[in-house]
């Protein structure tokens, strides 16, 4: 019984149920929405959010936050687009690697400022957010890179359909699988949870909290760089205000997915479901005839509901531990 109850309390199960209810509601008004092909489209459309949310999740697990992901994405994406526009004959892997590399460097800058100087991550990334986006302006001079300036390969790659899904979706699936394995089975992945759960205990266990944090920021930056290319290629345009404000969607996906803002609690499947939940809402609103202008309100309400749930879950978690300690002592002869 208690197992069923704890299963129902698990964020992943809750999200699956909420998603199913949402899908049923949508299906009652627009049956065409709930077809395999369309749900595949929803997943593809949410791919970038999923990838970014996984990087952000790693950062939040270590008790930090990365507000600069969207700005990083814009700068890396702009760099990739400009490289491609200037040298269209280069193989497409060059701008992709450039975007990933630049993203990694930007993430490492965040990580260094947080680790070496011990600055609060929220302030650091607030600062780098404006700086990175400003640099995107400096780099491009405010000009747009439009689809006709990009090489056909550069545009076609994420759209190439393999086994029924475009490469964009496969990229997200690859990142999800790697993250599940990496977070669960590698020392670096476990360190994220250890550092976030109890930094003091982590130090005694021989884990350097600074290093774990730095790596999380690097991962977030690297994935933001990758998404820079994916975004620019998918929407076939690069401009300074690209993905402005998207960092909040990314954080929202993590929070909805059950990542505790206090660090140490969270899971990759939860994050993915959180992102998909947001993606579902975003894609379903126009279909059921609600003005997309209400989308922001709904995500806001969902975020608040999710944090409230998180706070409750963390509280009850404390109680459960107490009960378990109580149980054997009452059972044992005094």
């Amino acid at each position, binding site marked *: 019984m208690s197992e069923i109850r704890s299963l129902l309390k698990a964020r992943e199960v809750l999200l699956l149920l909420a998603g199913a209810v949402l899908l049923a509601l949508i299906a009652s008004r627009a049956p065409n929405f709930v077809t395999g092909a369309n749900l595949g489209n929803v997943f593809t459309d949410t791919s970038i959010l999923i990838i970014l949310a996984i990087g952000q999740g790693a950062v939040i697990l270590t008790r930090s936050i990365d507000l600069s992901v969207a700005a990083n994405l814009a700068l890396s994406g702009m760099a990739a687009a400009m490289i491609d526009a200037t040298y269209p004959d280069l193989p497409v892997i060059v701008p992709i690697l450039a975007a990933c590399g630049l993203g990694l460097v930007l993430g490492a800058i965040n990580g260094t400022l947080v680790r070496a100087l011990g600055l609060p991550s929220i302030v650091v990334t607030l600062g780098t957010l404006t700086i990175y986006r400003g640099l995107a302006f400096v780099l491009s001079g405010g000009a747009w890179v439009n689809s006709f300036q990009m090489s056909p390969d550069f545009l076609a790659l994420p759209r190439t359909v393999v086994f029924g899904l475009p490469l964009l979706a496969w990229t997200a699936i690859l990142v999800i699988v790697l993250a599940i394995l990496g977070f669960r089975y590698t020392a670096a992945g476990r360190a994220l949870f250890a550092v976030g759960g109890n930094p003091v205990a982590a130090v005694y266990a021989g884990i350097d909290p600074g290093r774990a944090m730095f790596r999380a920021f690097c991962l977030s930056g690297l994935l933001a760089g990758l998404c820079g290319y994916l975004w620019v290629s998918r929407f076939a345009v690069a401009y300074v205000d690209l993905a402005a404000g998207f960092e909040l969607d990314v954080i929202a996906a993590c929070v909805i997915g059950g990542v505790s803002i206090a660090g140490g609690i969270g899971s990759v499947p939860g994050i993915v479901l959180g992102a998909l939940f947001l993606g579902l809402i975003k894609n379903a609103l126009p279909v059921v005839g609600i003005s997309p202008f209400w989308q*922001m*309100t709904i995500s806001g309400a969902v975020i608040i509901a999710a944090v409230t749930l998180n706070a409750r879950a963390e509280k009850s978690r404390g109680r459960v531990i107490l009960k378990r300690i109580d149980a054997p002592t009452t059972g044992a002869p005094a």
Partner: protein
Amino acid sequence: MTSLDTAASLGPSKTAKAPVPRRIPDRGGSRLKSVLASWEFLLLLLFIAIFTANSFASPYFLDVWNLSDATFNFTEKAIVALALAFVILSGEIDISVAGIIALASTAMGAVALAGQPAPVVALAGLGVGLACGAFNGFLVTVLQLPSIVATIGTMSLFRGLAYGFLGDGAYTEYPDGFDTFGQGYVWEWLSFEFTAFLVLAILAGVVLHGTTVGRKVRAVGFNPEAARFSGIRVARLKFWLFVATGLAAGLASVMLTSRLGSTRPSIAGGWELEIVTMVVLGGVSINGGVGSIPGVVLAAFVMGLVTFGLGLLNVPGIIMSIVTGAMLIAVIALPALVKRVSAVRAKGARR
């Protein structure tokens, strides 16, 4: 003695690796105190330097009317920053202030459209700000949500409501007399906005530095548990700080709406970052407990002048935002660097 010496020389290297988790807020600050005590002085020097540089850079700068105009682009933000400083001092944060401004402005537009006179319109703006602040306070104190996520949520909620009601439309009709709040002058070149800011700054300064409320706010920011055990009603205090910030955002919304004479859902976009930057630049520790109102006021002037001066030099707005971002990081990195350097020096001296 030699054994003691080796112990001492071993000591620091061991304590350096000992469990001092970086993300647990370091409330100590005693070593920083000397630096922070002179922070306002540093800001003042910076202000004078930028002022001088501006007056050399542009012949139009040193003009009373020009300077009066210069105050308009930061007073609204600065008014919110004064209130937000209290929230940050108490160890919380409010990211939703710009969202409140947008929602309050939308409400005022709707009330004005219904044909209400100027005072009612302004009261509607203040009322919505107050209500939004109370909602934030409720989430943080009653539901005990971490303020950063809660206000990221309400930021999206408040601005989302503005978008939901207005869509891609705009309110542009405001009653006669409503323009006083953002465009009026109290005396000659002394604008209504700037006067309100000065009065509120003095009020905030007195409350923070001269009353028990101010001391309580600092105490809560330093150590909420200790403050609670000292008999301070932590939750209630924080609740009212959020309400005050909402009200300040409502007031800023009245002024901004009056100054622009129109409301779009994107109004005050990105202001939350600039307002937080203003508070942190003013020397308020993001971990709470440390900070002063004169610092915030000076930071507001510095940021306003930098933006305005660069504007006079035809520098695009986004470059200004780079400067703002760099200033923010430099400002918080400086004390950390000083601490590092002095720690290294102390080590060297011991050898």
